[in-house]
Protein backbone atom coordinates (compact mmCIF):
# COMPACT_ATOMS: atom_id res chain seq x y z
CA UNK A 1 0.00 0.00 0.00
CA UNK A 2 1.38 3.35 -1.00
CA UNK A 3 0.31 6.36 1.01
CA UNK A 4 -0.24 9.77 -0.48
CA UNK A 5 2.11 12.35 0.93
CA UNK A 6 1.01 15.89 1.63
CA UNK A 7 3.38 18.39 0.09
CA UNK A 8 4.94 21.26 1.98
CA UNK A 9 5.18 24.33 -0.24
CA UNK A 10 8.20 25.70 1.58
CA UNK A 11 10.05 22.43 1.18
CA UNK A 12 9.25 22.18 -2.51
CA UNK A 13 10.39 25.75 -3.17
CA UNK A 14 13.60 25.13 -1.22
CA UNK A 15 14.25 21.90 -3.16
CA UNK A 16 13.58 23.61 -6.47
CA UNK A 17 15.92 26.44 -5.47
CA UNK A 18 18.68 23.98 -4.56
CA UNK A 19 18.07 22.11 -7.80
CA UNK A 20 18.53 25.30 -9.83
CA UNK A 21 21.56 26.42 -7.86
CA UNK A 22 23.25 23.07 -8.52
CA UNK A 23 22.05 22.55 -12.06
CA UNK A 24 22.74 26.01 -13.45
CA UNK A 25 26.32 26.93 -12.56
CA UNK A 26 26.43 28.65 -15.96
CA UNK A 27 24.37 31.48 -14.51
CA UNK A 28 27.28 32.44 -12.26
CA UNK A 29 30.17 31.61 -14.58
CA UNK A 30 28.60 33.70 -17.34
CA UNK A 31 28.69 36.72 -15.03
CA UNK A 32 32.39 36.16 -14.36
CA UNK A 33 33.12 35.99 -18.09
CA UNK A 34 31.03 39.08 -18.80
CA UNK A 35 32.81 41.02 -16.09
CA UNK A 36 36.26 39.90 -17.21
CA UNK A 37 35.45 41.18 -20.70
CA UNK A 38 34.26 44.49 -19.25
CA UNK A 39 37.34 44.62 -17.03
CA UNK A 40 39.68 44.17 -19.99
CA UNK A 41 37.87 46.85 -21.97
CA UNK A 42 38.04 49.26 -19.01
CA UNK A 43 41.84 49.07 -18.76
CA UNK A 44 42.18 51.55 -21.60
CA UNK A 45 40.03 54.10 -19.84
CA UNK A 46 36.44 54.98 -20.46
CA UNK A 47 36.98 58.49 -21.74
CA UNK A 48 39.52 61.28 -21.84
CA UNK A 49 40.57 64.71 -23.05
CA UNK A 50 43.85 66.30 -24.04
CA UNK A 51 44.69 69.90 -23.39
CA UNK A 52 47.75 71.28 -25.14
CA UNK A 53 49.76 74.39 -24.27
CA UNK A 54 52.95 75.58 -25.99
CA UNK A 55 55.17 72.79 -24.94
CA UNK A 56 53.05 70.87 -22.50
CA UNK A 57 50.23 68.52 -23.21
CA UNK A 58 47.96 67.41 -20.39
CA UNK A 59 46.12 64.22 -21.03
CA UNK A 60 43.24 63.37 -18.76
CA UNK A 61 41.94 59.83 -18.90
CA UNK A 62 38.96 58.61 -16.93
CA UNK A 63 39.06 55.12 -15.58
CA UNK A 64 35.95 53.73 -13.98
CA UNK A 65 34.08 50.61 -13.21
CA UNK A 66 31.05 51.90 -15.11
CA UNK A 67 31.53 49.53 -18.00
CA UNK A 68 31.66 46.58 -15.61
CA UNK A 69 28.47 47.87 -14.04
CA UNK A 70 26.64 48.19 -17.39
CA UNK A 71 27.81 44.79 -18.57
CA UNK A 72 26.56 43.34 -15.31
CA UNK A 73 23.12 44.84 -15.86
CA UNK A 74 23.02 43.44 -19.38
CA UNK A 75 23.94 40.04 -17.97
CA UNK A 76 21.13 40.34 -15.38
CA UNK A 77 18.56 41.09 -18.08
CA UNK A 78 19.68 38.15 -20.21
CA UNK A 79 19.79 35.84 -17.17
CA UNK A 80 16.15 36.70 -16.50
CA UNK A 81 15.22 35.80 -20.06
CA UNK A 82 17.29 32.60 -20.07
CA UNK A 83 15.46 31.14 -17.09
CA UNK A 84 12.16 31.31 -18.94
CA UNK A 85 13.17 29.10 -21.84
CA UNK A 86 11.21 25.94 -22.27
CA UNK A 87 13.97 23.44 -21.53
CA UNK A 88 14.61 24.87 -18.08
CA UNK A 89 10.95 25.02 -17.22
CA UNK A 90 10.40 21.48 -18.44
CA UNK A 91 13.28 20.25 -16.30
CA UNK A 92 11.61 21.74 -13.20
CA UNK A 93 8.54 19.70 -13.99
CA UNK A 94 10.58 16.53 -14.13
CA UNK A 95 10.59 16.85 -10.35
CA UNK A 96 7.91 18.04 -7.97
CA UNK A 97 6.54 21.51 -8.64
CA UNK A 98 3.57 23.51 -9.75
CA UNK A 99 3.68 26.82 -11.56
CA UNK A 100 3.75 28.89 -8.36
CA UNK A 101 6.62 27.04 -6.71
CA UNK A 102 8.47 27.10 -10.02
CA UNK A 103 8.19 30.90 -10.28
CA UNK A 104 9.05 31.49 -6.63
CA UNK A 105 12.15 29.30 -6.73
CA UNK A 106 13.33 30.96 -9.96
CA UNK A 107 12.77 34.40 -8.45
CA UNK A 108 14.81 33.35 -5.42
CA UNK A 109 17.56 32.22 -7.78
CA UNK A 110 17.52 35.55 -9.68
CA UNK A 111 17.67 37.49 -6.41
CA UNK A 112 20.61 35.38 -5.27
CA UNK A 113 22.36 36.02 -8.57
CA UNK A 114 21.66 39.77 -8.20
CA UNK A 115 23.18 39.83 -4.72
CA UNK A 116 26.17 37.95 -6.05
CA UNK A 117 26.52 40.55 -8.81
CA UNK A 118 26.10 43.28 -6.20
CA UNK A 119 29.01 41.91 -4.18
CA UNK A 120 31.36 41.16 -7.05
CA UNK A 121 30.89 44.28 -9.19
CA UNK A 122 32.10 46.97 -6.72
CA UNK A 123 35.02 44.76 -5.69
CA UNK A 124 36.01 44.41 -9.31
CA UNK A 125 35.73 48.18 -9.73
CA UNK A 126 38.22 48.60 -6.89
CA UNK A 127 40.50 45.99 -8.36
CA UNK A 128 40.46 48.03 -11.57
CA UNK A 129 41.65 51.13 -9.69
CA UNK A 130 44.49 49.15 -8.17
CA UNK A 131 45.57 47.64 -11.46
CA UNK A 132 45.58 51.05 -13.11
CA UNK A 133 47.47 52.55 -10.18
CA UNK A 134 50.16 49.92 -10.49
CA UNK A 135 50.33 50.03 -14.25
CA UNK A 136 50.66 53.82 -14.51
CA UNK A 137 53.32 54.61 -11.87
CA UNK A 138 54.37 57.96 -13.35
CA UNK A 139 50.96 59.53 -13.56
CA UNK A 140 48.99 61.75 -11.26
CA UNK A 141 46.10 59.83 -9.81
CA UNK A 142 42.98 61.03 -8.07
CA UNK A 143 40.31 59.12 -6.21
CA UNK A 144 42.17 55.87 -5.78
CA UNK A 145 40.99 54.79 -2.37
CA UNK A 146 37.26 54.16 -2.00
CA UNK A 147 35.49 56.54 0.32
CA UNK A 148 34.12 55.06 3.54
CA UNK A 149 30.78 53.37 2.96
CA UNK A 150 31.23 53.52 -0.78
CA UNK A 151 31.59 49.76 -1.14
CA UNK A 152 28.41 49.08 0.76
CA UNK A 153 26.53 51.73 -1.16
CA UNK A 154 27.70 50.31 -4.48
CA UNK A 155 26.77 46.84 -3.32
CA UNK A 156 23.21 47.95 -2.60
CA UNK A 157 22.87 49.91 -5.83
CA UNK A 158 24.22 47.12 -8.02
CA UNK A 159 22.08 44.50 -6.30
CA UNK A 160 18.91 46.53 -6.76
CA UNK A 161 19.66 47.30 -10.39
CA UNK A 162 20.54 43.69 -11.18
CA UNK A 163 17.37 42.54 -9.41
CA UNK A 164 15.31 45.00 -11.46
CA UNK A 165 16.91 44.10 -14.77
CA UNK A 166 16.61 40.35 -14.19
CA UNK A 167 13.00 40.85 -13.19
CA UNK A 168 12.31 42.71 -16.44
CA UNK A 169 14.20 40.00 -18.31
CA UNK A 170 12.01 37.37 -16.68
CA UNK A 171 8.87 39.26 -17.69
CA UNK A 172 10.22 39.68 -21.23
CA UNK A 173 11.00 35.97 -21.50
CA UNK A 174 7.64 34.89 -20.13
CA UNK A 175 5.78 37.20 -22.49
CA UNK A 176 7.72 35.64 -25.35
CA UNK A 177 6.70 32.20 -24.06
CA UNK A 178 3.07 33.25 -24.08
CA UNK A 179 3.16 34.68 -27.57
CA UNK A 180 5.93 34.79 -30.13
CA UNK A 181 4.80 38.27 -31.17
CA UNK A 182 6.61 39.67 -28.13
CA UNK A 183 9.93 38.39 -29.44
CA UNK A 184 9.74 41.15 -32.04
CA UNK A 185 7.54 43.60 -30.18
CA UNK A 186 9.69 44.06 -27.06
CA UNK A 187 13.01 44.80 -28.82
CA UNK A 188 11.10 47.10 -31.18
CA UNK A 189 9.62 48.99 -28.23
CA UNK A 190 12.99 49.34 -26.49
CA UNK A 191 14.90 50.42 -29.58
CA UNK A 192 12.03 52.62 -30.69
CA UNK A 193 11.91 54.44 -27.39
CA UNK A 194 15.67 55.10 -27.52
CA UNK A 195 15.12 57.02 -30.75
CA UNK A 196 12.29 59.09 -29.36
CA UNK A 197 14.13 62.35 -28.81
CA UNK A 198 11.78 64.17 -26.48
CA UNK A 199 11.39 62.76 -23.01
CA UNK A 200 8.34 60.74 -23.98
CA UNK A 201 10.16 57.42 -24.36
CA UNK A 202 9.27 54.66 -21.92
CA UNK A 203 12.90 53.74 -21.48
CA UNK A 204 13.96 57.33 -20.81
CA UNK A 205 11.20 57.74 -18.29
CA UNK A 206 12.10 54.46 -16.60
CA UNK A 207 15.77 55.35 -16.38
CA UNK A 208 14.90 58.75 -14.96
CA UNK A 209 12.59 57.10 -12.40
CA UNK A 210 15.29 54.81 -11.02
CA UNK A 211 18.64 56.38 -11.96
CA UNK A 212 17.50 59.89 -11.11
CA UNK A 213 17.00 58.78 -7.53
CA UNK A 214 19.73 60.15 -5.29
CA UNK A 215 18.64 58.61 -2.01
CA UNK A 216 19.55 54.95 -1.57
CA UNK A 217 16.59 54.50 0.73
CA UNK A 218 14.12 55.76 -1.88
CA UNK A 219 15.81 53.74 -4.60
CA UNK A 220 15.41 50.62 -2.44
CA UNK A 221 11.74 51.38 -1.91
CA UNK A 222 11.13 52.01 -5.61
CA UNK A 223 12.98 48.84 -6.65
CA UNK A 224 11.32 46.64 -4.02
CA UNK A 225 7.90 47.93 -5.02
CA UNK A 226 8.64 47.28 -8.67
CA UNK A 227 9.65 43.69 -7.94
CA UNK A 228 6.55 43.25 -5.79
CA UNK A 229 4.40 44.29 -8.74
CA UNK A 230 6.17 42.84 -11.78
CA UNK A 231 6.84 39.34 -10.42
CA UNK A 232 3.27 38.61 -9.28
CA UNK A 233 2.04 40.07 -12.58
CA UNK A 234 4.32 37.66 -14.48
CA UNK A 235 3.09 34.77 -12.35
CA UNK A 236 -0.53 35.64 -13.00
CA UNK A 237 -0.27 35.94 -16.77
CA UNK A 238 1.55 32.61 -17.03
CA UNK A 239 -0.52 30.66 -14.52
CA UNK A 240 -2.10 28.59 -17.28
CA UNK A 241 1.00 28.06 -19.38
CA UNK A 242 1.32 24.39 -20.35
CA UNK A 243 4.62 22.63 -19.79
CA UNK A 244 6.62 19.71 -21.20
CA UNK A 245 5.17 20.37 -24.64
Amino acid at each position, binding site marked *: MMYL*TEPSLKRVIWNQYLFKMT*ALPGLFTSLILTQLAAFALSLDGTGGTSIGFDTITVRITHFSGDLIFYFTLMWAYIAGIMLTIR*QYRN*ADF*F*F*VTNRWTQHLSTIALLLTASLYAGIVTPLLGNLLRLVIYWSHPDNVMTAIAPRPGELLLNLLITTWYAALLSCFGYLTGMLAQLNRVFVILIPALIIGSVYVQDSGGILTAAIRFYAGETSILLLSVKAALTLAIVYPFTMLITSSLEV*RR
Partner: protein
Amino acid sequence: MNVIECRQLSKSYLRKRALHQLTFSIRENTITGVIGRNGAGKTTLLKIIAGFYRPSSGEITVFSERPFNSMKVSQNMIYIDDQITLPTSLSLLDILHMAGRFYPNWDHDLAARMLDYFNLDPLQHLHHLSKGLRSTFLAIVGLAARCPLTIFDEPTTGMDAAIRKDFYRALLKEYLAHPRTILLSSHLLHELDDLLEDVLLIDRGELKLHLPVDELKEYAVAIIGDRELVEWVIASRTVYHRQQSGISRYAAIIRRDEDVLEEARQHGLEIAPVSPEDICVYLTNQTKGRIDDVFDRTES
Protein backbone atom coordinates in the same frame (compact mmCIF):
# COMPACT_ATOMS: atom_id res chain seq x y z
CA MET B 1 -10.87 3.68 -4.83
CA ASN B 2 -10.35 5.47 -8.11
CA VAL B 3 -7.11 7.34 -8.57
CA ILE B 4 -8.12 8.96 -11.85
CA GLU B 5 -11.59 10.00 -12.93
CA CYS B 6 -12.35 11.54 -16.32
CA ARG B 7 -15.71 12.78 -17.47
CA GLN B 8 -16.28 14.01 -21.01
CA LEU B 9 -12.65 15.03 -21.14
CA SER B 10 -11.75 16.85 -24.37
CA LYS B 11 -8.68 18.65 -25.57
CA SER B 12 -8.23 20.53 -28.79
CA TYR B 13 -5.38 22.52 -30.20
CA LEU B 14 -5.80 25.35 -32.70
CA ARG B 15 -7.19 23.22 -35.47
CA LYS B 16 -6.82 19.67 -34.34
CA ARG B 17 -9.08 17.74 -32.02
CA ALA B 18 -6.72 15.74 -29.82
CA LEU B 19 -9.10 14.14 -27.32
CA HIS B 20 -12.83 13.85 -27.59
CA GLN B 21 -15.23 13.21 -24.71
CA LEU B 22 -13.25 10.61 -22.77
CA THR B 23 -15.02 9.14 -19.78
CA PHE B 24 -13.27 6.50 -17.69
CA SER B 25 -11.74 5.86 -14.32
CA ILE B 26 -8.58 4.13 -13.19
CA ARG B 27 -8.64 2.08 -9.99
CA GLU B 28 -5.94 2.33 -7.37
CA ASN B 29 -3.02 -0.10 -7.68
CA THR B 30 -3.58 -1.33 -11.21
CA ILE B 31 -1.30 -1.44 -14.23
CA THR B 32 -3.11 0.02 -17.20
CA GLY B 33 -1.81 0.06 -20.73
CA VAL B 34 -2.75 3.16 -22.71
CA ILE B 35 -2.71 1.78 -26.21
CA GLY B 36 -3.20 3.60 -29.49
CA ARG B 37 -1.66 4.33 -32.84
CA ASN B 38 0.79 7.16 -33.37
CA GLY B 39 -1.05 10.44 -32.90
CA ALA B 40 -4.07 8.80 -31.23
CA GLY B 41 -3.84 11.15 -28.25
CA LYS B 42 -2.04 8.95 -25.70
CA THR B 43 0.57 11.54 -24.75
CA THR B 44 -2.01 14.34 -24.59
CA LEU B 45 -4.15 12.29 -22.23
CA LEU B 46 -1.22 11.33 -20.01
CA LYS B 47 0.03 14.91 -19.84
CA ILE B 48 -3.41 16.14 -18.81
CA ILE B 49 -3.46 13.50 -16.08
CA ALA B 50 0.01 14.65 -14.99
CA GLY B 51 -1.16 18.27 -14.80
CA PHE B 52 1.12 19.50 -17.58
CA TYR B 53 -1.71 20.35 -19.98
CA ARG B 54 -5.11 21.86 -19.33
CA PRO B 55 -8.22 20.11 -20.62
CA SER B 56 -10.32 22.17 -23.06
CA SER B 57 -13.54 20.87 -21.59
CA GLY B 58 -14.79 18.13 -19.32
CA GLU B 59 -13.68 17.08 -15.87
CA ILE B 60 -10.61 15.32 -14.63
CA THR B 61 -9.56 14.51 -11.09
CA VAL B 62 -6.42 12.75 -9.92
CA PHE B 63 -6.32 11.86 -6.21
CA SER B 64 -9.64 13.80 -6.08
CA GLU B 65 -7.95 17.03 -7.25
CA ARG B 66 -7.73 18.79 -10.57
CA PRO B 67 -4.18 17.98 -11.63
CA PHE B 68 -3.29 21.28 -13.34
CA ASN B 69 -1.17 23.28 -10.85
CA SER B 70 -1.90 20.74 -8.13
CA MET B 71 0.97 20.31 -5.71
CA LYS B 72 -0.50 17.10 -4.35
CA VAL B 73 -0.62 15.50 -7.79
CA SER B 74 2.91 16.61 -8.66
CA GLN B 75 4.35 15.24 -5.45
CA ASN B 76 2.63 11.87 -5.75
CA MET B 77 3.17 11.42 -9.48
CA ILE B 78 6.12 10.92 -11.77
CA TYR B 79 5.98 11.20 -15.53
CA ILE B 80 8.66 9.48 -17.57
CA ASP B 81 9.12 10.07 -21.29
CA ASP B 82 12.16 10.38 -23.51
CA GLN B 83 11.52 14.02 -24.43
CA ILE B 84 12.82 15.47 -21.19
CA THR B 85 16.02 17.51 -21.24
CA LEU B 86 17.71 17.98 -17.90
CA PRO B 87 20.48 20.52 -17.31
CA THR B 88 23.67 19.15 -18.85
CA SER B 89 25.73 19.98 -15.77
CA LEU B 90 24.09 17.16 -13.80
CA SER B 91 25.54 13.65 -13.76
CA LEU B 92 23.28 10.61 -13.50
CA LEU B 93 24.13 10.41 -9.81
CA ASP B 94 23.25 14.09 -9.32
CA ILE B 95 19.87 13.46 -10.93
CA LEU B 96 19.26 10.51 -8.59
CA HIS B 97 20.17 12.64 -5.57
CA MET B 98 17.84 15.39 -6.78
CA ALA B 99 14.99 12.94 -7.29
CA GLY B 100 15.62 11.72 -3.74
CA ARG B 101 15.14 15.25 -2.40
CA PHE B 102 11.81 15.62 -4.16
CA TYR B 103 10.13 12.23 -3.92
CA PRO B 104 9.31 11.12 -0.37
CA ASN B 105 9.28 7.37 -1.16
CA TRP B 106 12.51 7.45 -3.21
CA ASP B 107 14.60 4.28 -2.91
CA HIS B 108 18.14 5.30 -3.63
CA ASP B 109 19.55 1.86 -3.00
CA LEU B 110 17.30 0.35 -5.66
CA ALA B 111 18.24 3.06 -8.17
CA ALA B 112 21.95 2.54 -7.51
CA ARG B 113 21.69 -1.23 -7.89
CA MET B 114 19.78 -0.93 -11.15
CA LEU B 115 22.30 1.58 -12.49
CA ASP B 116 24.98 -0.94 -11.69
CA TYR B 117 23.05 -3.82 -13.28
CA PHE B 118 22.58 -1.93 -16.55
CA ASN B 119 26.23 -0.84 -16.54
CA LEU B 120 25.38 2.83 -16.34
CA ASP B 121 28.27 4.91 -15.02
CA PRO B 122 26.83 7.17 -12.29
CA LEU B 123 29.24 9.94 -13.27
CA GLN B 124 28.12 9.98 -16.87
CA HIS B 125 25.78 12.65 -18.19
CA LEU B 126 22.32 12.10 -19.56
CA HIS B 127 22.94 13.81 -22.89
CA HIS B 128 25.89 11.51 -23.58
CA LEU B 129 23.80 8.36 -23.32
CA SER B 130 22.43 6.55 -26.35
CA LYS B 131 18.69 6.61 -26.90
CA GLY B 132 18.16 3.19 -25.36
CA LEU B 133 20.34 3.78 -22.32
CA ARG B 134 18.71 7.15 -21.80
CA SER B 135 15.31 5.46 -21.71
CA THR B 136 16.74 2.86 -19.34
CA PHE B 137 18.03 5.49 -16.96
CA LEU B 138 14.77 7.44 -16.97
CA ALA B 139 12.83 4.21 -16.38
CA ILE B 140 15.03 3.52 -13.35
CA VAL B 141 14.18 6.97 -11.97
CA GLY B 142 10.50 6.24 -12.59
CA LEU B 143 10.62 2.97 -10.67
CA ALA B 144 12.80 4.14 -7.78
CA ALA B 145 10.61 7.21 -7.18
CA ARG B 146 7.88 4.84 -5.94
CA CYS B 147 5.17 7.39 -6.67
CA PRO B 148 1.56 6.35 -5.99
CA LEU B 149 0.89 7.31 -9.62
CA THR B 150 3.64 6.37 -12.04
CA ILE B 151 3.26 7.31 -15.69
CA PHE B 152 5.49 5.83 -18.38
CA ASP B 153 4.95 7.37 -21.82
CA GLU B 154 6.50 4.97 -24.34
CA PRO B 155 9.22 4.05 -21.85
CA THR B 156 10.97 1.46 -23.98
CA THR B 157 11.86 3.73 -26.92
CA GLY B 158 15.22 2.62 -28.23
CA MET B 159 15.72 -0.17 -25.68
CA ASP B 160 16.90 -3.46 -27.12
CA ALA B 161 14.88 -6.64 -26.55
CA ALA B 162 16.94 -7.80 -23.57
CA ILE B 163 16.72 -4.49 -21.72
CA ARG B 164 13.01 -4.24 -22.51
CA LYS B 165 12.41 -7.65 -20.95
CA ASP B 166 14.44 -6.68 -17.89
CA PHE B 167 12.49 -3.46 -17.57
CA TYR B 168 9.12 -5.21 -17.69
CA ARG B 169 10.35 -7.72 -15.12
CA ALA B 170 11.67 -4.98 -12.85
CA LEU B 171 8.39 -3.10 -13.21
CA LEU B 172 6.39 -6.15 -12.22
CA LYS B 173 8.61 -6.97 -9.24
CA GLU B 174 8.48 -3.38 -8.02
CA TYR B 175 4.73 -3.29 -8.49
CA LEU B 176 4.23 -6.49 -6.50
CA ALA B 177 6.53 -5.37 -3.70
CA HIS B 178 5.19 -1.81 -3.61
CA PRO B 179 1.79 -1.66 -5.31
CA ARG B 180 1.01 1.61 -7.04
CA THR B 181 -1.06 2.87 -9.93
CA ILE B 182 0.87 2.58 -13.15
CA LEU B 183 -0.02 3.93 -16.58
CA LEU B 184 2.10 2.73 -19.44
CA SER B 185 1.57 3.92 -22.97
CA SER B 186 2.55 2.04 -26.08
CA HIS B 187 1.45 1.84 -29.69
CA LEU B 188 1.39 -1.95 -29.44
CA LEU B 189 0.20 -4.44 -26.86
CA HIS B 190 3.07 -6.62 -27.98
CA GLU B 191 5.06 -8.04 -25.02
CA LEU B 192 2.73 -6.23 -22.63
CA ASP B 193 -0.29 -8.50 -22.26
CA ASP B 194 1.33 -10.51 -19.46
CA LEU B 195 2.18 -7.35 -17.55
CA LEU B 196 -0.97 -5.27 -17.90
CA GLU B 197 -4.17 -5.75 -15.97
CA ASP B 198 -6.30 -3.29 -17.93
CA VAL B 199 -6.16 -1.86 -21.41
CA LEU B 200 -7.35 1.60 -22.37
CA LEU B 201 -7.52 1.75 -26.14
CA ILE B 202 -7.61 5.18 -27.77
CA ASP B 203 -8.12 5.88 -31.42
CA ARG B 204 -8.13 9.34 -33.01
CA GLY B 205 -8.80 10.97 -29.66
CA GLU B 206 -11.68 8.71 -28.75
CA LEU B 207 -11.91 5.96 -26.19
CA LYS B 208 -12.39 2.67 -28.04
CA LEU B 209 -12.46 0.36 -25.06
CA HIS B 210 -11.36 0.05 -21.45
CA LEU B 211 -11.23 -3.60 -20.41
CA PRO B 212 -9.24 -6.04 -18.32
CA VAL B 213 -6.75 -7.90 -20.49
CA ASP B 214 -8.46 -11.19 -19.62
CA GLU B 215 -11.72 -9.96 -21.10
CA LEU B 216 -9.92 -8.58 -24.10
CA LYS B 217 -8.62 -12.07 -24.82
CA GLU B 218 -12.24 -13.20 -25.17
CA TYR B 219 -13.39 -10.05 -26.94
CA ALA B 220 -13.30 -11.23 -30.54
CA VAL B 221 -13.03 -14.41 -32.58
CA ALA B 222 -11.93 -15.28 -36.09
CA ILE B 223 -14.29 -17.34 -38.25
CA ILE B 224 -12.33 -19.11 -40.94
CA GLY B 225 -13.36 -21.11 -43.96
CA ASP B 226 -14.94 -20.72 -47.38
CA ARG B 227 -15.55 -17.08 -48.18
CA GLU B 228 -19.23 -17.22 -49.03
CA LEU B 229 -20.08 -19.45 -46.12
CA VAL B 230 -18.24 -17.25 -43.67
CA GLU B 231 -19.96 -14.14 -45.00
CA TRP B 232 -23.33 -15.85 -44.77
CA VAL B 233 -22.78 -16.89 -41.15
CA ILE B 234 -21.58 -13.47 -39.99
CA ALA B 235 -24.17 -11.54 -42.00
CA SER B 236 -25.22 -8.24 -40.40
CA ARG B 237 -22.56 -8.40 -37.70
CA THR B 238 -19.90 -5.75 -37.34
CA VAL B 239 -16.76 -7.11 -38.90
CA TYR B 240 -13.48 -5.75 -37.58
CA HIS B 241 -11.34 -7.29 -40.24
CA ARG B 242 -11.53 -9.51 -43.32
CA GLN B 243 -8.64 -11.39 -44.75
CA GLN B 244 -8.23 -13.75 -47.67
CA SER B 245 -5.27 -16.07 -47.26
CA GLY B 246 -5.13 -18.84 -49.83
CA ILE B 247 -7.95 -19.87 -52.13
CA SER B 248 -10.34 -21.47 -49.68
CA ARG B 249 -9.13 -19.79 -46.53
CA TYR B 250 -11.02 -16.65 -45.67
CA ALA B 251 -11.11 -15.15 -42.21
CA ALA B 252 -13.47 -12.63 -40.67
CA ILE B 253 -12.96 -11.19 -37.21
CA ILE B 254 -16.09 -10.32 -35.27
CA ARG B 255 -17.18 -9.60 -31.71
CA ARG B 256 -17.61 -12.89 -29.79
CA ASP B 257 -21.22 -13.98 -30.00
CA GLU B 258 -22.43 -17.43 -28.96
CA ASP B 259 -25.19 -17.54 -31.64
CA VAL B 260 -22.75 -16.95 -34.44
CA LEU B 261 -20.24 -19.41 -32.98
CA GLU B 262 -22.93 -22.07 -32.76
CA GLU B 263 -23.89 -21.54 -36.37
CA ALA B 264 -20.29 -21.54 -37.50
CA ARG B 265 -19.69 -24.85 -35.76
CA GLN B 266 -22.74 -26.37 -37.45
CA HIS B 267 -21.36 -25.36 -40.83
CA GLY B 268 -18.00 -26.83 -39.97
CA LEU B 269 -16.20 -23.49 -40.00
CA GLU B 270 -13.00 -23.07 -38.06
CA ILE B 271 -13.07 -20.78 -35.01
CA ALA B 272 -9.87 -19.21 -33.74
CA PRO B 273 -9.14 -16.87 -30.84
CA VAL B 274 -7.80 -13.41 -31.61
CA SER B 275 -4.96 -12.08 -29.52
CA PRO B 276 -5.55 -8.82 -27.62
CA GLU B 277 -2.76 -7.31 -29.65
CA ASP B 278 -4.52 -8.07 -32.92
CA ILE B 279 -7.87 -6.81 -31.65
CA CYS B 280 -6.28 -3.47 -30.83
CA VAL B 281 -4.80 -3.27 -34.31
CA TYR B 282 -8.14 -4.09 -35.97
CA LEU B 283 -10.09 -1.68 -33.78
CA THR B 284 -7.79 1.20 -34.60
CA ASN B 285 -7.19 0.56 -38.25
CA GLN B 286 -7.65 3.98 -39.76
CA THR B 287 -6.05 3.46 -43.11
CA LYS B 288 -8.18 3.39 -46.20
CA GLY B 289 -8.09 -0.17 -47.47
CA ARG B 290 -4.71 -1.80 -47.11
CA ILE B 291 -1.18 -0.74 -47.91
CA ASP B 292 -1.37 -3.08 -50.90
CA ASP B 293 -4.03 -0.86 -52.45
CA VAL B 294 -1.61 2.05 -52.63
CA PHE B 295 0.58 0.07 -54.98
CA ASP B 296 -2.13 -1.90 -56.71
CA ARG B 297 -4.31 0.60 -58.52
CA THR B 298 -5.78 -1.70 -61.16
CA GLU B 299 -7.73 -3.78 -58.66
CA SER B 300 -10.73 -2.16 -57.14
